[in-house]
């Protein structure tokens, strides 16, 4: 009650200050006049009565001031006074203000930018309601060496009935040719079981989505499209619902459009950029199988019953799996150790980048702290100039508390100005900053500077202001009045202490910069190692271009339906490709054969003679290529032979494997002549290979075509003429004009079939670079921060050494007068700078050891304690420090003893 009334009274006095003021004046006047009335009754003249009343009342202004104080106005008023004064002080030294505000703007702007990235990826990774309930369900067969081995239809039904999930959804990703629009194009589609949208909990922008209870067997012909496709291919037609589109020559009906910003929570960029969702019943063909060991290459995603934690759900699921294993011992042999694992969907999206992002956030926080330390240093330098002002104000009766408050107001104002400037810069540069972020950085949210981010910026500003404002404020609180006023500021105790504070600040700055620079150095080193890794293939002068052959649901309309039909097309394509300008060699392959193309195409591997071991099988990366592929990429054959033109649809199936696969499955044996079978891969692929034995005819050297960081991923290649893929890549080597090739290939392909889209043209060198873009992104940013930190630290040490030199001009003069050599003076000053830099480097090395250990997962080919990086960075830092000290040192050297001595 009293608190409320106090607040009300405070609010009233604050908001209606002028009103309250006049009220107070009227009340006091009324008092004096009434008193005068009483006096007049004793027979005194009105003027005399009023005069006496005034005298007896006392100083009216003093009473008013006391009244104001009693109402609690002073705090706000003094704050306004402080701000006005601080603004005046900042205006008076524009150079200082500009440097400080810019430093802080940089720190706060960068922190805000990185935080907005972290906010959109790590903190809010899944833009769906109750994201904590969403899990990915992965089947592992550790006994057969397979993780995430796919799911069988009976298992899917078990999961649906288990009572653990609200919804379980199967997904399959692919791409399809969108035709009937101006230019045929490829789009990413996703086949989902009908509960998909209900599970994610997102409503369409237009029309409707699938009915989660829909039991239609097989494919439905209804599709939901993304906002992007709606705008791109249908010109944002408001009457889209009910219209049809042609995907791979099949006619589909659009039933809904998703809102902008809706993305599938997929693992790859392609999956996240899905543009069309088709309903799959998974209850009849093509998914009728009741065979538990037939694992389909599907993704399984589920939403847990609300209130169920992932751990609790996992233990229920473990019990279910145990009972199923008991119930179906033939399908789940003990040695395959079948388990089902729940992975929070969030992990799937951010798992890979968490470390990088935390590193970036840490780096930017360090830059901010270094910026603060630098401003604190500047403020301290100013404080020594202003110590007289402070002393005079204290002598005139200003309370120390009040002065400290005023100094803090100044630094807070400075940091808020910095924060505002930082945000303004950020808003202006938003577009170009967004372009820096690699597309492969998993995020489902659009980046935005939202309220949380703004609050963080504000908090960072305030924290910064307090951090760098405290040192000078403390200083002011301890001022020795008498000596300062007598002009003994120089060399007095206060100033020694100040110098010590500034030294500590510089050492801190150096230590933090060293940590950042070592982090940057290690990343740079890893990146360099990766760039110079032995690729195992030659990307020079090679381009790849993609196209997709439609696979309509009705086989009769498929002109590329049989291997023979497609082989004819493929040979014609190759023939025409060789005729393109500059082309020396040409080859075809399935999409997964494009080096460093992040697309998984794994098939179950069944080795002849070993299938008894387990009905559950491991998975290998597989692809199809024409015979020219290996020579074009410069991958040598180690044993046996490569494909030849005779390996066609009529010949027995043959395969070429890489060294890693030979090592994994035939260690100590000769793989040549061994036979194997592959499980079905993607839809429409692997029909023949899953039914017939394939003979291994050759072993090629390992090449880093799957991952730059990993040379030995088992891979198997089939002949493209025997196992025809739908997603094709054309490889060209020669003296190519990279900007003309896409159009030339498009014209060439469409001269064969005008309905085919051509896309994804790239040079292999670009593909190599692109596969490093996430690393490059974090490396670039950390390096930029490190350089900033180094500059700030150099500025800091320059400031302190200059200050010390100024302080000691007198002493230097005496030394010179007594016969010291100028070189000695130079050495003396440099030694001081050096000792600071070395102290900073020593502390920094300790910090860097810890940080380097934490970021070990981000490194490649370099140990976290890499002595070269550590030593190199420390030497660089000390060198920069010496350079920064050299300028003031030269000034000290040039001191004229006469001038210096006369100065006092």
């Amino acid at each position, binding site marked *: *009650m*009293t608190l*409320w*009334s*106090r607040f009300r*009274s*405070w609010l009233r006095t604050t908001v209606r200050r002028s009103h309250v003021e006049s*009220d107070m004046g*009227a*009340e*006091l006047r*009324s*008092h004096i*006049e*009434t*008193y005068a*009335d009483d006096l007049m009754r004793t027979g005194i003249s009105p003027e005399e009565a009023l005069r006496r009343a005034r005298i*007896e*009342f*006392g*100083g009216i202004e*003093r*009473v008013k001031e*006391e*009244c104001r*104080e*009693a*109402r*609690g106005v002073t705090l706000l008023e003094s704050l306004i006074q402080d701000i006005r004064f601080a603004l005046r002080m900042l205006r008076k030294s524009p150079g200082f203000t500009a440097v400080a505000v810019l430093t802080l703007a940089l720190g706060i702007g960068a922190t805000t930018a990185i935080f907005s990235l972290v906010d959109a990826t790590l903190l809010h990774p899944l833009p769906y309601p109750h994201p904590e309930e969403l899990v990915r369900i992965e089947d592992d067969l550790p006994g057969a060496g397979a993780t995430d081995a796919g799911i069988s239809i009976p298992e899917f039904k078990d999961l649906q009935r288990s009572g653990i999930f609200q919804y379980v959804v199967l997904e399959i990703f692919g791409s399809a040719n969108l035709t009937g629009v101006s230019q045929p194009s490829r789009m990413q589609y996703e086949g989902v079981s009908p509960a998909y949208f209900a599970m994610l909990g997102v409503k369409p922008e237009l029309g409707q989505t699938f009915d989660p209870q829909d039991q239609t067997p097989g494919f439905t012909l209804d599709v939901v499209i993304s906002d992007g496709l709606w705008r791109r291919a249908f010109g944002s037609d408001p009457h889209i619902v009910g219209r049809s589109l042609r995907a791979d020559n099949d006619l589909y009906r659009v039933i809904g459009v998703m809102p902008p910003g809706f993305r599938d929570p997929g693992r790859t960029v392609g999956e996240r950029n899905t543009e069309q969702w088709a309903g799959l019943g998974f209850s009849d063909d093509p998914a009728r199988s009741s065979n538990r060991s037939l694992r389909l290459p599907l993704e399984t995603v589920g939403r847990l019953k609300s209130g169920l934690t992932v751990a609790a759900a996992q233990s229920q699921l473990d019990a279910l799996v145990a009972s199923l294993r008991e119930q179906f011992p033939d399908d789940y042999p003990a040695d395959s150790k079948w388990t089902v694992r729940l992975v929070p969907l969030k992990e799937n999206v951010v798992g890979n980048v968490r470390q990088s992002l935390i590193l970036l956030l840490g780096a930017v926080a360090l830059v901010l702290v270094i910026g603060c330390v630098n401003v604190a240093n500047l403020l301290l330098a100013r404080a020594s100039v202003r110590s007289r002002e402070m002393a005079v104000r204290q002598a005139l009766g200003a309370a120390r508390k009040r002065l400290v408050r005023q100094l803090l107001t100044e630094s807070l104002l400075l940091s808020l100005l910095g924060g505002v400037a930082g945000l303004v810069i950020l808003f202006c540069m938003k577009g170009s900053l967004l372009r820096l972020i690699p597309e492969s950085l998993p995020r489902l949210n659009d980046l935005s500077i939202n309220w949380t981010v703004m609050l963080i910026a504000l908090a960072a500003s305030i924290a910064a202001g307090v951090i760098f404002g405290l040192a000078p404020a403390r200083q002011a609180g301890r001022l020795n009045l008498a000596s300062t006023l007598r002009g003994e500021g120089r060399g007095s105790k206060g100033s020694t202490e100040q110098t010590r504070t500034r030294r500590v600040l510089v050492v801190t700055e150096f230590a933090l910069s060293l940590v950042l620079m070592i982090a940057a150095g290690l990343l740079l080193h890893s990146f360099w190692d990766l760039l110079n890794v032995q690729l195992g293939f030659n990307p020079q002068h090679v381009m790849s271009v993609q196209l997709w052959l439609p696979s309509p649901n009705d086989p009769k309309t498929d002109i590329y339906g049989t291997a023979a039909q497609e082989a004819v097309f493929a040979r014609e394509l190759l023939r025409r490709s060789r005729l393109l300008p500059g082309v020396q060699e040409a080859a075809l392959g399935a999409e997964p054969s494009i080096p460093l193309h992040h697309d998984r195409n794994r098939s179950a591997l069944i080795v002849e003679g070993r299938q008894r071991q387990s009905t559950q099988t491991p998975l290998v990366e597989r692809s199809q290529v024409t015979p020219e592929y290996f020579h074009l990429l410069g991958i040598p054959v180690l044993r046996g032979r490569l494909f030849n033109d005779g390996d066609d649809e009529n010949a027995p199936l043959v395969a070429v494997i890489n060294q890693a696969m030979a090592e994994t499955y035939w260690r100590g044996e000769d793989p040549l002549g061994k036979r194997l079978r592959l499980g079905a891969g993607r839809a429409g692929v692997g029909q023949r290979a899953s039914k017939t034995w394939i003979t291994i005819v050759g072993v090629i050297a390992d090449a880093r075509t799957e991952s730059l960081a990993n040379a030995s991923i088992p891979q198997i290649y089939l002949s493209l003429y025997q196992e025809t893929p739908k997603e094709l890549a054309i490889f060209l080597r020669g003296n190519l004009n990279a900007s003309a090739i896409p159009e030339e290939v498009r014209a060439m392909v469409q001269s064969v079939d005008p309905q085919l889209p051509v896309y994804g043209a790239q040079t292999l060198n670009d593909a190599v670079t692109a596969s490093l873009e996430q690393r490059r992104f974090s490396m670039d940013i950390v390096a930029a921060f490190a350089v900033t930190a180094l500059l700030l630290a150099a500025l800091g040490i320059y400031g302190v050494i200059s200050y010390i030199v100024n302080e000691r001009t007198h002493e230097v003069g005496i030394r010179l007068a007594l016969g010291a050599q100028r070189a000695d003076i130079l050495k003396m000053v440099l030694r001081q700078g050096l000792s600071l830099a070395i102290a900073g480097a020593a502390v920094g090395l300790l910090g860097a050891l810890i940080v380097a250990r934490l970021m070990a997962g981000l490194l490649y080919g370099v140990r976290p304690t890499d002595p070269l990086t550590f030593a190199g960075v420390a030497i660089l830092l000390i060198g920069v420090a010496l350079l920064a000290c050299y300028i003031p040192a030269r000034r000290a050297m040039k001191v004229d003893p006469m001038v210096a001595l006369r100065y006092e």
Partner: protein
Amino acid sequence: MDKPLDLLQGTLDMLILKAVSLGPLHGYGVLLRIQQISKDRLEIQQGSLYPALYRLEHQGWITSEWGESENNRKAKYYRLTAAGKRRLQTETDKWNRMSDVIAGILHTTPEEV
């Protein structure tokens, strides 16, 4: 007549609350009321009255309202609030206990120690 006593430190607030508890008063009226009740034995500095009134109002123990005084001047009238009433009660109790204790101490004779 004796020379009026100066007010004891910290008692002005209590006296104002008491004066106002007997009926709404303007500032000058408070002064007169206290002098009248004390039979002119207390001297209150006119200037110190208003900060005290503002403080009490700020704390929510009294409220004010503009009105017309007996000699037709505009004047601000103060009234006790419910919170003020409770405050006056506790202050009075405290004062009574305190004056008992102090009187007891001052009346002590050497034999009683």
